[in-house]
């Protein structure tokens, strides 16, 4: 257990970033493809510490070796956006399917809605034929979830996101994967973890329902339950989310995210 003096200056965003990095533990030499500010920073952190084999994108069309994050994708696109980057591989959008369909990627996606089995929606809210709110679309979620390891990042944990039932299943959840057959059509399905601003979650329950895996420091079980619109599995013992090590903190502050963009995505609770 850490002492209070270890916690000085550690932000909620630091804890979230470490939790994201932990999602990639054990992945080896695959494409870590985190979408969003803290996921990109967390992916870099994992590579710079315990998962050196990971490959990371610059948010556009290359895989780069740099630990630092870039504010991409560049609005202009183009080769000028390569300035200062150490390119490992040219990775245009179409190449992504080669990684995804061959099982060499772990993506961290966002979700406008997610249910207890991890079914994700970021296509539309309401009637799919005439939605109340049109969102992005299916994007690559069906292909990502059926082919590769997938985790989710929810920076704003609330009952409108963690819902009883999603309006559209873009990313496949555990119940549907089981129905397809984990030894059959869904044999490459691997929905691993959900990280939110309140805690971390997995599906390590007998019926693959979402389970509270750890609480970020300062967050109570009651706070998580109140922010979750479905019945969450809550074990008797709930560990605290891992804190960043001094080395990790230094990397985050000095190299990976010196501008502190992670703290803008998840501000510290008042």
């Amino acid at each position, binding site marked *: 257990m850490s002492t209070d003096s270890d916690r000085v200056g550690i932000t909620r965003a630091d804890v979230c970033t470490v939790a994201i990095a932990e999602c990639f533990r054990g992945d080896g030499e695959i494409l870590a493809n985190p979408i969003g500010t803290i996921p990109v920073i967390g992916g870099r952190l994992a590579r710079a510490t315990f998962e050196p084999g990971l490959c990371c994108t610059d948010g*556009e*069309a*290359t895989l780069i070796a740099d630990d630092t994050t870039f504010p991409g*994708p560049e*609005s*202009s*696109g*183009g*080769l*000028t*956006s*390569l300035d200062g980057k150490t390119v490992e591989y*040219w990775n*245009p*959008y*179409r190449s992504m*399917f080669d990684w*995804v*369909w061959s099982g060499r990627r772990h993506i961290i996606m966002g979700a406008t809605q997610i249910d207890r089995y991890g079914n994700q929606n970021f*296509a*539309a809210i309401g009637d*799919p*034929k*005439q*939605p*109340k*709110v*049109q*969102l*992005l*679309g*299916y*994007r*690559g*979620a*069906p*292909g990502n*979830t*059926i*082919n590769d390891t997938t985790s989710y990042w929810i920076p704003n944990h609330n009952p409108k996101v963690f819902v009883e039932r999603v309006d*559209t*299943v*873009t*990313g*496949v959840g555990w119940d*549907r*994967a089981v*129905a*397809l057959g984990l030894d*059959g*059509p*869904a044999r*490459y*399905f691997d929905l691993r973890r959900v990280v939110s601003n309140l805690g971390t979650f997995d599906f390590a329950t007998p019926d693959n329902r979402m389970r509270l895996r750890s609480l970020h420091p300062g967050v109570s079980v009651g706070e998580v339950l109140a922010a979750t619109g479905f019945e969450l599995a809550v074990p008797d013992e709930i560990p605290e989310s891992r804190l960043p090590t001094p080395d990790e903190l230094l990397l985050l502050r000095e190299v990976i995210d010196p501008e502190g963009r992670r703290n803008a995505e998840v501000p510290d609770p008042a």
Partner: protein
Amino acid sequence: MPLGIIDDKLVTEDDVVGELRSGMTVAIGGWGSRRKPMSIVRAIVRSDLTDLTIVSHGGPDLGLLCSAGKVRKAVYAFVTLDSIALEPHFRKARQSGAIDDEPLDEGLVHLGLQAAAWRVPFLPTRVGLGSDLFRDNPTLRTVTSPYDDREELVAMPALELDAAICHLNRSDARGNALYLGPDLYWDDLMLQAAPTGRRFISTEKVLPTAELAGEGCLHQRRISRMMVDGVVAAPGGAHFTSCAPDYPRDEEFQAQYAAAARSPEAWDAFRTAWLDLPETDYQRKIREDRKPGNADGQEDT
């Protein structure tokens, strides 16, 4: 115009529109708000074409055509303006029920175009299994592997096109073209999937074939004249989307475009200012708009 003259395929935006018919399925190249053939899209907006089915990795091409009332159906995996995450004109069309849609995973778009280009009815994949794509897109079917595994897979149908329209950085007059930015996106597949006679590109600069060698690198010369029936010389033709490295996205203009989705009045004002005019006037206005104080300065030739 005749398009059949082999050594010179130069046409205008309006010539391209003249080859299209209401009800056609048109693929539009680029990605999000990047390297979109906007000058041809604007020409479609000015035309009396209607009921188009648009296949696109969608950006303002699809949004603009929706607000102009040209779209019957959208075939897409996403629609975004990049710096503005959700395309407001597309959202408005969907939320008002003005258009039908056939949503897809972006990998399915890839396979659908590839199947059309290779002239096979479908290509198999796991993409889509377990998702609501089968609820929302009635064109999708599954197929059982004829081999011992007997696996059930998604049979992504060929995306049958009537036309394809893309914007490239450089070309010759015969349709050999190259991109200079980081990504070709799906331009080559769209042109290969569309039928001969209605495969169009616009380009920033048309050069003699021999001079293309001085542009970009060998590996960027991915568009062959065998894929192209008409070439539009369109400097600034991708505006306001990015056309790296020739020019970045015009973020200020894009914000103005996005704001035009807020009300019918805002749309009318945007349309009057930027759409109900010939492309040459549009390009001149953009240049004047971008150089305040230089509005009646240099001559444009």
